[in-house]
């Protein structure tokens, strides 16, 4: 029953997201534009940077944009459509439906990585080679999990806000900057690096980059993987607590309207 709800929510969410022009931009056009921009910026930086920074950076920027402009705003869109109260009160459980929406969005958003890769190969003949393919797949699975959980925290935080659109816009670039999507976080000032280290996508991106170059230190790889999972677990706990708090507040106030 729960899996059926999760699956049908995922499929429905993918269809709903794809018809929105902003999501189509984030998913289809954004990775192409970012790949061209980053390629031109990294042209003199050496070939080894293309896959790790241009393709991966542009793809992940597209993925994060999709999450920011969809998962973060979906609750607001349900409110606008008048269906928020219905899905909140449904016996299928509200968190399960939100999780289905987020997983659907995140899986569909992975297409941006593929589009970025195809753009780089077709337009710029970027050589395609993955140093450690199996570890890359493991890192990618970890990345998806990390993004799903971080999206659920953001979705919870924005449930009762009337300024979702502002926060959606303000979340995009800071996270891309802090997590080092297109440059190593080591170039940031030490105080900012401390903040970066508290964000699980930072580790996810480092793992993806390590596996693209080819993992030479397996212990370091799994160590980073463990840290990423630990932080992601903390986010999951935070998301659960936030949901319980919102649920209690909504039941006392008997309204899902914005604060």
């Amino acid at each position, binding site marked *: 029953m729960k899996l059926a709800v999760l699956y049908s929510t995922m499929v429905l969410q993918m269809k709903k997201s794809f018809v*929105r*022009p*902003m999501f*189509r*931009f*984030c998913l289809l*056009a*954004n990775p192409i*534009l*970012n790949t*061209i*921009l*980053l390629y*031109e*910026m*990294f*042209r*003199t*930086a050496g070939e080894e*940077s293309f896959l790790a*920074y241009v393709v991966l950076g542009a793809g992940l920027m597209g993925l994060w944009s999709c999450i920011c402009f969809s998962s973060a705003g979906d609750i607001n869109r349900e409110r606008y459509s008048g269906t928020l109260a219905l899905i909140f009160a449904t016996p299928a459980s509200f968190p399960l439906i939100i999780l289905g929406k987020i997983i659907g969005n995140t899986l569909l958003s992975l297409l941006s990585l593929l589009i970025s890769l195809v753009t780089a190969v077709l337009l710029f003949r970027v050589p395609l080679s993955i140093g450690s393919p199996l570890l890359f797949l493991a890192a990618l699975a970890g990345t998806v999990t990390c993004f799903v959980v971080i999206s659920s925290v953001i979705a919870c935080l924005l449930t009762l806000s*009337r*300024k979702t659109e*502002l926060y959606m*816009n*303000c979340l995009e*670039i*800071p996270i*891309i*900057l802090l997590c080092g999507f*297109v*440059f*190593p976080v080591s*170039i*940031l000032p030490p105080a900012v690096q401390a903040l970066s280290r508290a964000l699980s996508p930072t580790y996810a991106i480092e793992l993806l980059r390590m596996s693209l170059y080819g993992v030479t230190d397996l212990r370091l790889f799994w160590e980073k993987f463990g840290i990423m999972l630990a932080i992601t677990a903390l986010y999951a706990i935070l998301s659960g607590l936030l949901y319980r708090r919102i649920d209690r507040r909504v039941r006392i106030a008997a309204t899902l309207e914005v604060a």
Partner: protein
Amino acid sequence: MIRRFFHQAYLYHKGRSAAFHAEEFILMQLGYPLISLIFYCLIASYSFRTDNLTAWIIGNSFLLCTHACIFGLGIVFDSERYFGRLRSILSAPCKKLPLILANGLYSALFAMCASGFGFLVGSLVFGVDFTGVNLALAALTIVCAMFSATCFGLLLAMFGMISDSMHFILNLVNGLLMIFTGAEFPLSQLPAAGQLLAQILPLTKSIAAMNLLFCPDRGNFWPLLAGELATGAVYALLAWGFFGFVERCARRTGKFDLF
């Protein structure tokens, strides 16, 4: 007439900003664009392996105006339709040009502030040296750039009458501006067709003119500035002509949209 123009401009601004507290409004108008500026300067410092970020501070400071001029103005008619005022505007027996310009007044002012603030932050954070730069000419270049970008934003706003995918269009244009204005990498890296497109777009000539102010030989400064003003004037005329066409179509067909 002039008083009504400024009152209308204030009302448009109030309509766009009333939902936000002052600090949120500042975050939206200045904070987020500045983080974008820092982000692209960090990419440039890493990819071009340079500490001299003057060209990127200039380019990205000019691009800061896109938030106000492109997104703020471009969505005007989309918003009017959303709030149900499009009918009143089209059928009102008043001149439409002052109405459109009133819509862009505050956006252009905020765009100028954002650009000026971008230069200030650029000099403080990235150590861009303004000694020896003629500040009056720099201010004049900013005004010309904002005029051109605002006119371009007005033309984009007209697309709201022929398309329901304005978020897609505006974000696409924003991406194209980043690639083709020479803000992020030298235009000489682009193919001939790309360089031609760059000359048609707003901001390209202002960015080049501002870069010249940092050089001992100002060379083509005045022709570039005149070119930027001419580009803006062409966009303003196109926007005005397009609006007239849309207005006639609306009166003839009894519909407010051409899609």
